Every structure is written in C-alpha cells, then in structure tokens.
C-alpha cells in the first residue's frame, strides 16, 4: 500500500463579500430566499442587456491574490465560456481564460508550500430545482436565478498536495486567510466556499502525473477529507486490479459515502472561449493595488508563528486564536494592556472561542490580572466575564458587588467540606473502595457550595478529611 503517492490539486470557488452581483446591481441573496427574487434584466440575460463590472468584487479578488502572494499582471480581461444549460441565462458564463486577474502565488500549510496557479473572477450560474427526486426521473424542472451572476473567485492550486489531510488543511487555511483579510465569509455550508479536488495517484518515486478525477458536491471539510480518501482508495483498487482511471468529474454522495461518475471528459465540451466584447480589458491602477497591499492585515500564518515565538503560546492555542481575526485582536490588545499572555490565551481558547462572546480588551486584561493573582476563582472569573459582556460593567465592579474572592484558608473551608462529606455517603464509600474518580464528584459539590474556594486547597482538604 505504501508504494502509491496521492497527488491533489485544488480548485476552490469563493464568493467574495459584496453587496451586489458581479455584473448588475442586484443584491446577493441569502440561501433559501424565495426563488427569482434577486434578479433583474441583466442577470436574467434579457436581450439587449450588458454587464458592468462590480469594483468591490475586483477589490476582493486582488486582496485575495495579494494575500496568496500572487503576481498581478498589468493587463487582465474577461472571456466568455460558451455552453448552453438552463441555469445559464446568457448561454455563456463570463469568466477569465488566458489573462486572469493574478497568477503564481503561494500558500504555506503546515510547512508545505502549495503553489497557487491563478486566482480569477467569474460569475455563478443559477440553480435548477427538479420536481421528482432525481434528475432522470424529473418530469418538470424549475430554474432559480437568484445565484446567477453572483461573483465568484476561482483559486486554483498546482498539484502540490499529497494527502486528504493536506487537502483539508489547505482548504481550512484558505478559509482562514479569506476571513482574516475580509475578502469573503467563506462559509462552506452557505456555498460561499466550494472545494473541488483533482485527485490522482502514482507510484511513489515517479514524477509523471496519473489520470485525475475531479470531485464535486463537497459541502464540508469533513466531506472533502472523506471524498478524497474514498477516491484514492477507489483509484488504487482499480489500478491494482489491472483497471485504468478514467479522467472524469465525479460527484461525492454524502449519503452513500462514495463518489460516482458525473461527466466523462472524453466528451468534454468545447467552451469556445473568446474575449468578452462587452467588457474592455482592465488595466488596474498600480497605486490602487499597492494601497490594497499596504492595507492588508497581518496574515494568519505569520500571526500564528509570532504568537508562538513571541508569546510562548502552544501551536494549538496559536492556531485557534489566529484563525479568527477578532479573537487574535482581542488577545493581543488585552496582552498589550497588561493581561498575562498564557492564562489569557488559555481563557480565549476555552471560554471565548466556543461562545464567540467578545469582551472589551481592557476589561479582559483586568479580569485576567485578578485571576492570575488568585484573587478570584476560575468559576467566578467566568461568571464575571459573561456578566460584563452582558451589562458592560467592569469586571472589578462585578467582582466587588458579588463579593467574589478566592479562599485559600483551609479553616474557612473545613465546615463546608465536612458538610459535603456528610451529605454524599455514596461518593465517600466509592472513594474509599478505590474509585478515585469519586473525589471529583465531591469536589464539584464543594465548589457549588463555595465557588470562592481555591480548587487546589479544596482538593487537598477533602483528601485529608477522607483519609
């Protein structure tokens, strides 16, 4: 099994964050809005209409290209990709063929350098809704053009990924970058990020690429991972039993957990690309591009590395914090205002990231300092944190009002501890019979009655009383 090498290149379609569509003024619909409510004569492709380029989409594409360290050529243009399908109102898609907005970039994922071939702009198609459960059984099909003309960036990598894990991590890193620079919300479930891996395998140690298949219908990072694993396994079994891989597009079926043939490239359509005559070639202003470059925030990978090297965070903490610009900004600002780095990182990972509730950085610094000084317990800090988020009052006020403090004096806790032991004879018996875990139950009871108790002191006290 080890003598096969997996080779993956990724095509990722990303919907840039824009108010309107790529070539008209229609607002971009949320998923599940009533069909054909975000359409006009332009995105319906009515006779006589013409496209006009959405500047915000170009800006998002250039920002993405810059973040992916692409070159931005002096000239770029749009082309028509001609094919007829009922979800394509003009009978062609406006895309970019031989002069894309950007080329030759790079994205590093866990130390692997993935080359980016190009990032270009195009428009999305509409969607067909078939009455009946499957296309070939449908007796009627309906066309919803809400998505027709929605801008899409296509980010194409070179075949530099070597496993399903790498492909998934690449897609996640891409999402992180897109969110960090504000180019897209990149929500896979909303169809804002669609990953299509091109998968092939070859004998380890050889250079020639095997025949690839392109996988579609992938709706989550988990599905991406599983689809690739399935496909690699399928190709390997084929080749090992004397079969050949056919170059084709294969769909991932979430229900059946397999890929299935959709469209063979042997009968590949001739798209008859030619320059879009309705849109003059673009010559982007270099100063504008440099302005966008200068305004890019620190990229997640760089921030992540800095959090490890400068702040001493673990790789795991740094990854979670840097993946979200809001978390990372909260962390760094709080630390700048005096919050202790490691406890604050720990706090953000465990308390803030899962809830998404962000506190003012100065308040967080205040709270973390109290926690660090052992003035309050972690439970109290949590109470104070969320109360401060809700009310906007300072943690110090909240702590004072509730009389939060941490008690480390054994004598103050002894009465409560004894009461807990008396009230839980079963846990006490379990503990004495060797079930050490029963101690945690008793500890929890104690903390419920005395949230101010220093957990370490309380634990030692219980141990002493039980022995």
């Amino acid at each position: 099994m080890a003598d096969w090498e997996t080779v993956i290149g990724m095509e990722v379609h990303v919907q840039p964050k824009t108010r309107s569509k790529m070539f008209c003024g229609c607002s971009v619909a949320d998923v599940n809005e009533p069909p054909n409510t975000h359409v006009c004569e332009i995105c319906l492709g009515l006779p006589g209409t013409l496209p006009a380029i959405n500047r915000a989409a170009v800006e998002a594409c250039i920002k993405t290209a810059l973040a992916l360290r692409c070159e931005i050529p002096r000239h770029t243009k749009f082309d028509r990709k001609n094919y007829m399908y009922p979800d394509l109102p003009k009978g062609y898609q406006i895309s970019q063929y031989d002069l894309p907005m950007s080329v030759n970039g790079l994205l590093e994922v866990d130390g692997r350098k993935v080359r980016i071939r190009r990032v270009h702009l195009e428009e999305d198609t509409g969607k067909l809704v078939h009455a009946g459960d499957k296309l070939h059984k449908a007796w009627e099909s309906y066309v919803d053009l809400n998505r027709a003309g929605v801008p899409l960036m296509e980010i194409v990598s070179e075949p530099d990924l070597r496993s399903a894990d790498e492909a998934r991590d690449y897609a996640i890193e891409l999402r992180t970058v897109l969110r960090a620079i504000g180019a897209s919300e990149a929500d896979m479930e909303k169809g804002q990020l669609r990953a299509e891996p091109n998968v092939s395998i070859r004998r380890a140690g050889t250079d020639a690429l095997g025949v690839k298949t392109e996988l579609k219908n992938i709706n989550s990072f988990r599905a991406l991972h599983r689809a690739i694993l399935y496909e690699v396994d399928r190709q390997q079994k084929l080749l090992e039993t004397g079969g050949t891989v056919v170059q084709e597009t294969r769909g991932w079926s979430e229900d059946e957990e397999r890929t299935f043939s959709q469209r063979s490239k042997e009968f590949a359509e001739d798209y008859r690309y030619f320059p879009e005559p309705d849109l003059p070639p673009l010559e982007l202003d270099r100063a504008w591009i440099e302005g966008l470059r200068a305004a890019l925030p620190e990229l997640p990978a760089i921030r992540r590395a800095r959090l490890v090297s400068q702040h001493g965070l673990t790789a795991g903490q740094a990854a979670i914090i840097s993946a979200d610009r809001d978390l990372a900004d909260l962390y760094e600002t709080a630390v700048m205002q005096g919050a202790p780095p490691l406890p604050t990182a720990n706090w953000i990972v465990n308390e803030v990231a899962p809830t998404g509730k962000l506190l003012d950085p100065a308040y967080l610094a205040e709270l973390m300092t109290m926690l660090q000084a052992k003035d309050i317990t972690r439970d109290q800090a949590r109470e104070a944190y969320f109360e401060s988020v809700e009310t906007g009052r300072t943690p110090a006020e909240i702590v004072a009002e509730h009389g939060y403090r941490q008690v480390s004096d054994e004598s103050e806790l002894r009465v409560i501890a004894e009461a807990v032991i008396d009230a839980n004879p079963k846990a006490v018996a379990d503990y004495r019979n060797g079930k050490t875990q029963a101690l945690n139950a008793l500890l929890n009871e104690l903390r419920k009655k005395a949230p101010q108790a220093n957990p370490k002191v309380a634990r030692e006290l219980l141990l002493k009383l039980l022995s």
Partner: protein
Amino acid sequence: MTDDLTSLTIQDATRLLRLGSISSADLVTAHVERIERVDPRVKAYLRLTQDLWETQADEADRKIRRGDAGPLAGIPIAIKDVLCVRGVETTAGSQILRGFRPPYTGTAVSRLFEAGAVMLGVTNCDEFAMGSSTENSGYFPTHNPWDLERVPGGSSGGSAAAVASGEAIIALGTDTGGSIRQPAALCGVVGMKPTYGRVSRYGLIAFASSLDQIGPFARSVDDAALTLSLMAGYDPLDSTSSDRAAMEVLNNYGAGVKGMRLGVPREYYDVAGIEPGVKAAIDAALFILQKQGAEIVDVSLPHTDYGLAAYYIIAPAECSSNLARFDGVRYGLSEVDAPNITAEYSRTRRKGFGTEVRRRVMLGTYALSSGYYDAYYLKAQKVRTLIKRDFDAAFEKCDAVVSATSPTVAFPIGSKTQDPLSMYLCDVLTLGGNLAGLPGISVPCGTSDGLPVGLQVLGPQWGENVVFRVARAYEEASEMKAGVATPGPSPRRGEG
C-alpha cells in the same frame, strides 16, 4: 396639407410646433395617415405604437405650451426592431422573439424620449440585423419607396424606408457592417453610424457586440447631427461607452470644407462591381467638394480585400455567442414538447431562426472551435488591427475619407437571396468603418438609373464633427436634399 407635414425636417417641424401653427398631435396624425396610405406597399413598419404616440404627443404639446420642451419635442420617430422599448413587442426581426416585450427601455431610445421624441412604431429589419436587404426579416420584406420592386437595403431597411417615404421624420437604426449607411444610400436619406462607444448599446439586441452601433436616419445632416448629440455620451450600463462629451459631435461642423483634405481610397473608388452610374455620381460629388475648397487626395487602404473575410469571421463568432440565450427557456418561442433539453433547444432554434441566422451561428461556432480558433478568429482579429492601421495611415494624409456608400443602387427583391456571398459584397465599402470603429455617414448624392446613390464620409475615431462638416458642406453646395418618395407602381426606366 398633411403630405406637407410628412416631408419636414426636425428644424421645419420644430419651428411650426413652437409657433403654434401645428400641434404634435397634428404632426402625428399626418404621419399615421401617411403610414395608412403608403405602408401597405412599403411595409416599413412591423408594429405601430399608438399608446406611446398618444401619451408622448400629449406630453410634448403640454411642454411646448409651457415653454420647457426638449429639442425633439413632438418629433415623430421610428425605432428599429432591435432596440428595446419597455412594454413594446421587440423581436429583432425574428420569430424566435415573437411576443417578447422588454421590461426596460434602452439608453439611446430613452434619451430621445426624454428629449421629447414621439414613437410611431417599430421598423422592420433583417433578422438580428443580419443582412443587407431586409429580405431576411422573419416577418416580410420591406420595399424601396423609390421602386417597390427593389430592396431598401439593410439591415435597417424599415427605418430607412420609413424616413424616405414620409412615414417618420427621423428613425433609429443599428450599423454592424453598414446597416445604417447602406439602406440610407439605397433609400436616398441621411444615415449616420457613430464611432464605436459614442452611443450606449444598452438595450440594443446584440448581433456582433464589438461592431454594433446605434445611429440616426434623417432628411438632413443637421437632423442627424442633432439626434446623435442627444443620444450620445457615457452610460454606466455600457462599459464600452465613452465618457467623451456628447456635444463634441457638433463642434464646428458648419464651417465648410475649405482647406480640408479629403482622401479617396483607390481600393474603394475602383471597388469590384461598382456601377458606372454610382461612380459618375461620386465623381460629381468630389467635383462639388473640390469647388467648395476641399483638396482631394489619393489614399490607400491596402487591406480592404481582407476586410470582408475578417468581418465574416468576427461578426458570426460574436453572434454565435450572443444568440445562445435564445433557447426557449425564459422568453420568446419555446418548443417544450421535446424528449430532452438538447432537443428542446434544437427545435426551438430551428423553428425560430431563419436560414441566414442559422448559417452565421454555425459559421461563428466553427470559427471559435478548439483547433480552429487561431486560424480563424485570432487571424481575423489581426486583420482587424491591420485595417485600423490602414485608416490611421490614411488619416495622416487627409481629414476624412470619401467614397460611395454602396457599389450599387437598390437591387431587385430576390436577386441576391440565393447567393449569400453576393449579398455580403453589399457591405464592402462600409464594414471597414465598423472593423476600425470609425464614424461614417451616408448622404444622398444624386441618382443612377433613377435610383438614389449615397456618398459615404468616414472620419477618424471620435471625429463625428468632421464627418458632419464634410457631409453638410456637400449637402449645402449640391442642394441634394433627401427627397420623400410617394411610392406607386414601379417606374419605367431607360435602358442605360
């Protein structure tokens, strides 16, 4: 009396309207009566727009009384069937769009409406503007008002015939390879094709996007210039429209030709198939221009021979893509009773498109196909660049280029329909202007064998004012006003 009202220029009509001698409603009534009388024979109009002319004439009369009327207030206009008007059936001369009523009005038309124009109806044309005789209309052919057995030219034949027969004061057409200038010449009226990008194409049902331009038909150069100035100018809905000032098309255009150098390209002057009568009319025109003080210079457009071939690659290539949207799914003709979507497409398009449209869609699809793209489309684009350079070089030696608009006068209906190539040759003197994106006009310059001949003036890019200047000087000196034909039985003509 009413006939008098149907041979006016904008200037004449405006004077009468402002004086209060007539109302816009009178003017419309005179035209509608004229249409009822002559259009059964000319067949310039596909549809009349009574609702529109009633409200627009009312509005014009109100504004004239209030004293805030626009420059075209009350002027009856005919609109070619490729320009979308909200709520008015617009079909590009094709059965495939039968019943299609656009939910919007295109930019050029709405600018003329804002200036007060009153729309009388939709004029006939070759299907999707593909043709030079209006015989390719998906409805019926239009007849030349000067000889009903002859074609009016095309593709904007209905608009040209409407102005020539007193059925409208001005009309709009579109010109992709000569479709305004050639019918203007054959019908004896003024027809102007602006620089590519001068007028927004928004609302123009595209034939070949990189060549199409909207332009006016009129009875005088002044009327054409005024109409153009009112619809020109940047439109955010058309990215290929220019932000140059619309009014520059009128700059100094009344200054006369004294001291101007007018180039006569020898490839145009001696073009194959040019009729002696046409050549004689052009010689006479050149003589008049010379007498007005212009210097006639010899220039060359060496790649002229390749222009036709390049044009018949580029235009079909673009049309094959532009016409893909007519698939029966959303509007127009729809043959839904088919076993699958591909069959539905084929049946709809086979039934809805005529022969010439199908021919060009196939030609263009072939020219763009993988493996043929470089040899055809890319090569044609290179030829296009060479043709532009030809004109650049010519305009270093002259201010404007003059020639015949069409090598022939109007030809008999049916005489070229069996031979597409001979039909394509009708555009040999005009399509260079489209490939190079230049402004051009055709003005009446006498007759040959009793039929109108047109003089073409081509100017450099954005040189509409130069084109108008030469055309106006000729019009004034020659006293060659566009006449209004009263179509009757075919006149007998001598033998040569």
